[in-house]
């Protein structure tokens, strides 16, 4: 089976600093991979590279069949589901407005929005501007978007941070479903996480994969 992610000696640079200093990695479809490493190990940079948000400065790589050196990064961005630290798109919009805006942009039916908010337990705060939501609620909002989006590749940056017990259970259940239905998940965390959805753990340090 063709891997979803295939990187060889991938380098990402920002301001003359190598965020990734040569990553070689392969990820098969329908798997859950956890990137583990200390702060500054390059977890976020690697996720951003996979999402088409960073440029490949050196090395080779392909994600979802798109060559990172040649393809328009915009084509890749549209195909991934991204969970970042902020959780929302625009802080001044409410949770529901954010999701509707995003759903319209990618041609997803608007009816999915309320069901997704229900699923992550945000229905009571659906009309609140997201800048008033707590960090955990923002994570839930980001998950709701991923449920609406149903991307081929889910990229989750520190999804477990700020989530309560209940939220972690919800996330795990969701990730298991995604992997089972053919999606691929790549998530990051500073410490190893026990989760039924995680099938492989990749350790990063100094912008590289270490054994």
């Amino acid at each position, binding site marked *: 089976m063709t891997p979803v992610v295939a990187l060889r000696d991938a380098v990402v640079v920002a301001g003359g600093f190598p965020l990734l200093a040569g990553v070689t990695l392969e990820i098969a479809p329908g798997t859950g991979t956890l990137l583990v490493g200390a702060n500054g190990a390059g977890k976020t940079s690697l996720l951003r590279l996979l999402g088409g948000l960073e440029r490949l400065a050196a090395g080779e790589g392909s994600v979802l069949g798109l060559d990172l050196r040649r393809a328009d990064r915009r084509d890749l*961005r549209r195909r991934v589901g991204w969970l970042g630290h902020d959780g929302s798109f625009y802080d001044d919009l409410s949770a529901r407005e954010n999701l509707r805006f995003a759903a319209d942009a990618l041609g997803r039916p608007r009816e999915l929005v309320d069901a997704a908010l229900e699923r992550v337990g945000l229905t009571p705060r659906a009309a609140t501007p997201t800048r008033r939501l707590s960090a955990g609620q923002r994570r839930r909002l980001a998950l709701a978007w991923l449920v609406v989006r149903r991307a081929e590749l889910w990229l989750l940056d520190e999804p477990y941070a700020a989530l309560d017990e209940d939220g972690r259970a919800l996330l795990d259940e969701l990730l298991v479903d995604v992997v089972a239905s053919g999606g691929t998940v790549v998530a990051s965390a500073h410490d190893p996480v026990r989760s039924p959805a995680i099938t492989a753990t990749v350790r990063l340090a100094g912008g590289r994969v270490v054994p």
Partner: protein
Amino acid sequence: MIRVAGRVARKDLLIEWRSRVLLWQVVPFGAMALLLAGLALGPTRAGSSGAGPGLYYLVMVLVTLLAAQRSAQVERGAGTRASVATLGLDPAGVFLGKALALCVELWAIGLVLGAGTVLFLHTALRAALVASPSIAATLAALAAAGTLYGALTTGDGSAATLLPVLALPGFSPLLIAGERSFSAAAAGGATGSWWVITLVALVVYLAAGVVLYGVLEDA
């Protein structure tokens, strides 16, 4: 493209409606700038110098800087940039939408400050009404230009403070053309060839935005 533009414009106006930044920060700034202009001219000249149209446009150009900065700032948050990028919106549509929203905002502010010009700087109400189509067109061109220059200065580091330096040279012909046609209206004359500059600038900025906004977004 048009559909995306509509959604983005609605989103920007909704954000403005929620945050009221323009109402509470930009409009008072504009009103104060107009008052300062009157103070700088002195009581005798402020009411009779015919400087109203010029000062009006000077203040509107400054207001445009603030409003464009705000419009660009909405997209500037690190989280916003990453997550919006994964929506794959058509950049031309985003540009048109943001320009449209900024244009609507400038029209609203322009109306308030136009009333201020008539009241404080004694510009004839009739002149302001006659000049209103040209003002609307000039403000639209300023909105398109401001959106483009705002996107140029989005990003990490010190880029945001560069907006005035980059935008003001581009605003200068609009200031001249707008002032001339407003003054001509005040003098009861035709606004003739100044329309050409305003319209050409509007078309050029819209076209440049449609073609180049994507290049900026990707960077």
